[in-house]
């Protein structure tokens, strides 16, 4: 067994183990960092496969993404530190079943499928080849991804901004009730500013 193989098996095990831990750990912050570990291990496997740019790109993309993920975790979760045991799942048996079936089906494809064995040629420079592809034949695809990202940014700012042209983002919204059909739980109080604004509006 070569050093490459040993590195591969260690990283594969880490990727799968960390991916599994994401959904069983109590702490939400830990969950996002377990996902980061899973991505880092996959990045190392990509480096082993000579995808030098993609592996390293995965490192920095995922470090930033998971950092943001952890911040959101802390903002939205009741139990970010995992001090209490926590299991927030629904239809778990179905989910496990589907997960296992998908894994089995895809593995069957991997084991029984016949794929041509054409490894990367000796002299290929992966980064150069990727660069020529991105800014050559596939420039349209690459630039479309860029424009889509720009559109995403605009949409995200629009969705998350507190106020639009016609008033507050949460104007008229109702939190769900504690029990089905019950009174709205924890309705946010009208802010001082909001009420003032309304008052003025009526006067004019």
């Amino acid at each position, binding site marked *: 067994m070569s050093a490459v193989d040993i590195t591969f098996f260690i990283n594969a095990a880490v990727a799968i183990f960390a991916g*599994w831990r994401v959904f069983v750990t109590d702490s939400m912050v830990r969950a996002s960092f377990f996902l980061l570990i899973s991505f880092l291990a996959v990045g190392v496997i990509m480096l082993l*496969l000579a995808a030098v740019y993609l592996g390293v790109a995965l490192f920095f993309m995922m470090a930033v993404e998971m950092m943001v993920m952890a911040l959101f975790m802390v903002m939205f979760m009741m139990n970010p530190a995992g001090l209490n045991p926590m299991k927030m799942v629904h239809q778990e048996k179905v989910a496990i079943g589907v997960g296992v079936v998908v894994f089995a089906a895809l593995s069957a494809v*991997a084991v029984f499928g016949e794929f041509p064995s054409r*490894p990367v040629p000796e002299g290929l420079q992966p980064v150069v080849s990727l660069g020529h592809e991105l800014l050559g034949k*596939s420039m349209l695809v690459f630039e479309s991804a860029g424009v889509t990202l720009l559109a995403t940014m605009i949409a995200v700012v629009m969705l998350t901004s507190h106020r639009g042209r016609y008033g507050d*983002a949460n104007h008229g919204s109702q939190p769900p009730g504690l029990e089905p059909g019950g009174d709205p739980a924890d309705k946010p109080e009208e802010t001082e500013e909001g009420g003032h604004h309304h008052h003025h509006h009526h006067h004019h």
Partner: protein
Amino acid sequence: MTLTTLLIVAAALIGIGIYGTLSQQSFVMLMMGLELIVNGAMLAAVSFWALSAAGAPEGQLLTIVAMAVMAIEMAMGFALVVAVFRAKQADTTEALDGLKH
């Protein structure tokens, strides 16, 4: 490190991701499941590129597109979570059982 073992690892990541996506109640955890699926898909794409496609540059391009998809998914996901939380104080999928208000 053969194509088969690589694809099995990718399949395991996708399987775990699907479990997470289907089973998690919290939006952010659900998104983690989606991320894990894309993680497995990217690994499979790079494996095919390296071992079965003779280093065709489109294989790497596909992975770049998958990364862009993941970034968009994250950004839109968080924006929607923020918008939904602002509107309904909800952070789990169960709280969104109606189409309006």
